[in-house]
């Protein structure tokens, strides 16, 4: 179920209210007519996490109900994408020089 939290960009400890707030904020940012794929992703994630009972059901049964585990894993890594670090040009060029060396 991690991919759903990652898709909503929210902590696994978020409350019902926080989840709903974040969901509304995200669908405002990604309306279906402009960004249908992301919208679908956000909606699915919300449906899986919307309240405590649903979250518990998702946690217990989601891996069993995943029709395509490979796709689920791909979604997981896509949704997670480790945090990017802002580095400057000099750092990038140093990395390049080190590689050349």
């Amino acid at each position, binding site marked *: 179920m*991690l991919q759903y939290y990652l898709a909503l960009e929210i902590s696994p400890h978020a409350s019902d209210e926080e989840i709903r707030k974040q969901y509304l904020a995200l669908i405002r940012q990604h309306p279906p007519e402009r960004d249908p794929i992301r919208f679908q992703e956000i909606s699915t994630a919300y449906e899986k996490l919307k309240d405590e009972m649903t979250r*518990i059901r998702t946690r217990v049964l989601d*891996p069993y109900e995943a029709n395509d585990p490979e796709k689920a894993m791909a979604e997981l*890594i896509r949704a997670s994408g*480790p*945090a*990017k670090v802002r580095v400057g040009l000099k750092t990038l060029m140093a990395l390049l020089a080190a590689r050349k060396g």
Partner: protein
Amino acid sequence: MAKPGRKKRKTKRKSQWEQLARLPFSQIARQGKAHLQAGEFKEAIPFLNAALSKNQDTDGLRPFLFRAYLKRSAQLREKAMVKEAGLMLANAEKWLPASTNMAEEDLVEYLSFGPVEKSAALCHAYLKTHDGVSPRLERALAGLLVQSERWDLLDPLPTDSPLLAHAPVVRKALVRMNRGDWEGALEALKGIPRASAFFPLRAFSMAMTRFFKEDEAGLHRALSMIPREFPLFPLAQALRIAPESLTCLWEYPPFSTRDLEALLTHVRCQEIEPAAFLVKRMALAVLPENPRAAMMEIIQYLRAVAGEHRRGDALIIGLIHRLLPGAEGTLLQAKINFYRFENGIVDAARYLQVLDTEFPVQREWNQAASQVLIFTVLRIISEGTEIPALDRMSAPLLRLLGIQSSNQELLLIEMLSQAVTLDPRNESAYRLISQLPRPSREAKRLVEDALEQMAVEFPEDPYPCLALSQLQHEKNAFRKAEAILEEAKRRAPHDARIIDAYVICLLISAQKRVCGNKPHLALEDFEKAQSLCQSRMLPLVTAKRLLFNYDVPGQASLFGPHVIRSPQQWREAVAAAVERLTPFQRLNTLGMIALDMEGAKLPGTRGFSKKLKLLLMNASVDIPMLTSREIRTLLTPLDETLYRLMPCLERAGVYLKHFPGMLQGVNHADIVAVLDAMIAENLLKAARNEIQRRLRTAADRSTVLLEFYLLAVKHLDGRTGSGRTEFQALLDRADQGEREQIRAAARRISQHASDPLKTALTTLDFQYLDPQSAAFPEFDVLTMDEDENWGEDKDFWIDEEMPLAGLPDMLDQIPFDMDLLEGDFPGMLNDQLADMVENAVDELDLRGAPIGFIREMREEMKRQTTGPWVFDLIAKLLDAQNAQELSRESWEFLYGKD
């Protein structure tokens, strides 16, 4: 290790050098230049080197050799031979010409690859001695400025140079870029036009902003604007192809789709070590703050990838042992077994035993356990999972599942009751429990308790009231049902389901009152039903009311305005009542009266039946006005909710008896449902005639399905002795879609057939219809049970090589009459049997083996056994206490499902 032939090559090169040295200078120099011009840099180098070694005045040739080395260096770099390219560049630097002699092309080439400091120095010298800068050199210089920030290089440039004009902006932007403020840099560079030599820097800033905004398309668009010769091109290339390789851009090493593919390959190839390593890496990338939770999830997904076989099991267990030792591993193993559900409720109970590791908070545990119980019940229903003998399960496991009785009929209801108790807000548990069969009084009590709880938990939901009223009907408590439906009506006043249920409840009550000689009360019910009902139930209410008049002629007159004295009067009353109705409702009402009169064999005179027949004949004018869908509704069975009101639900016979021609009004789409109804009512002749009529008149429409029906009807009717050939020929003619239709139809028809046709239709394998395969081999259970000598069989399972010494002696103490064993098998022997099973597991080296392997081993041993399988006997003998205390492996060996 030296390459073979290296010495030989060295000797050959030496001899070539000697040959070159013997040639005159002019010839060598000419050949060197010719190779250079032809782009054969590798060949040019030895000639130019030889020429320079002959002539001290090298100024003329130095630039050529410099260029040859530079170009060769570029060639090698293209081939990704970075080290060799570096060597060539170093050689080139040895032959660096004076700045006055240097060609611009060579300078540009050097600036592309040379070290920044040397490039800057060389460039500075060149610009001082040359006037004017070509656009190509301008671009190279821009790149050099970005790398070196040696702004003094711009001093020799003419004042109108665009580089000079843009330099201040670029300097400002570079400061921001070095801080990582790519958006600020882009903003600063927005004035740089596309034609400017600094434009690639703007494109790079744009690419970086898109990278941080996760705008893949924008990133690629920006990167495509950076030319190959720009010094940031390798960075652009890395961003385009493998951004994860730029490690400084990521907080943790990212896990790419290529890594995922590698992980899946390792899993499929059962390579535990590399798979474990990648799972760990992926978990860290996915959830760095809690990689163990991520690992649990990833392994659960990998379970499906690894496959449901012994090797897959071994891999998953291996991953769990390596990555999640301790409680989490135990939990995960139990969860995976629960998903596999090979031992049904035992797996569910074992998962519940460790569920607190996953849900340590009690409230969450309750909800999760409730979900587990619902899922277990659903799997048992959908998969028909075998339920193990409940007395073989320990009390704690049964308690976890909420099972209190040893009655298997109650098992599912008890589990759902437990689910409801654990999580009273779990709506699906209530709904599921209300749909389960409840044959016994105890089952009804449990369901009633659950539904009453639901009614309290969901005070606005009419569902529990509806379900409760149905339950009260089953208990013949009609007044209670009515009171509950009143409450349902309060909750959802406009819900048609509730109104229908209420009407049915009133009609049942009225019927009971008529039987109880209380027609005045029955009349009240009818009137109430009449006032409540909507168009859908109107024919039923009208029919019942009219039948009431027929049933108790005269009595109703005491309480109502009409007096029924004769069949003629009844006919007039019916005609007047149905006149107001639509043709469909009219036929529906008359059909229900006929069904009731014929099916229930109501007491009465022949005159009433005759009058009904006349009424039906008069109604035949309504038939052409019906739509195909309406005819279909009339011919298919009544709704199941009416089963207490009607003698039977099938009514096609009633209509077809009076209106045989009404089938003509059924269109092609509806005929299948009608034929199914006719077959269910055994109206085979009518069905056959109708199909044959349709086949005669079918134009270009495919008739395969109808032909299949015809053939099946003929078989059902015993009118054909043909075997599989005709069915097979039909199947061969059918396309994919038609085959699916035939398969579905065959399943439906099989419910009304007997063997061998039933089996043939169920399996869609018509070989069963062949005379030779029609006789099924019979298994004589009685004969087998009476074989008293099985224990003394010479081929009894144990042989000398089997590591189960002592077992035969032990078995000698077991009486063979199993009926005597119930509860009487001595406790001490029971303990010994349990020990023996544990020993057997040790001897067979099954300790720690995956479940699948244990079962496979047992099945293999069973196959090799010619006599009965002794462990079945032991499984039966072991008491619950000993069974519970068995190790995981022994339990699987004894009780694990095949």
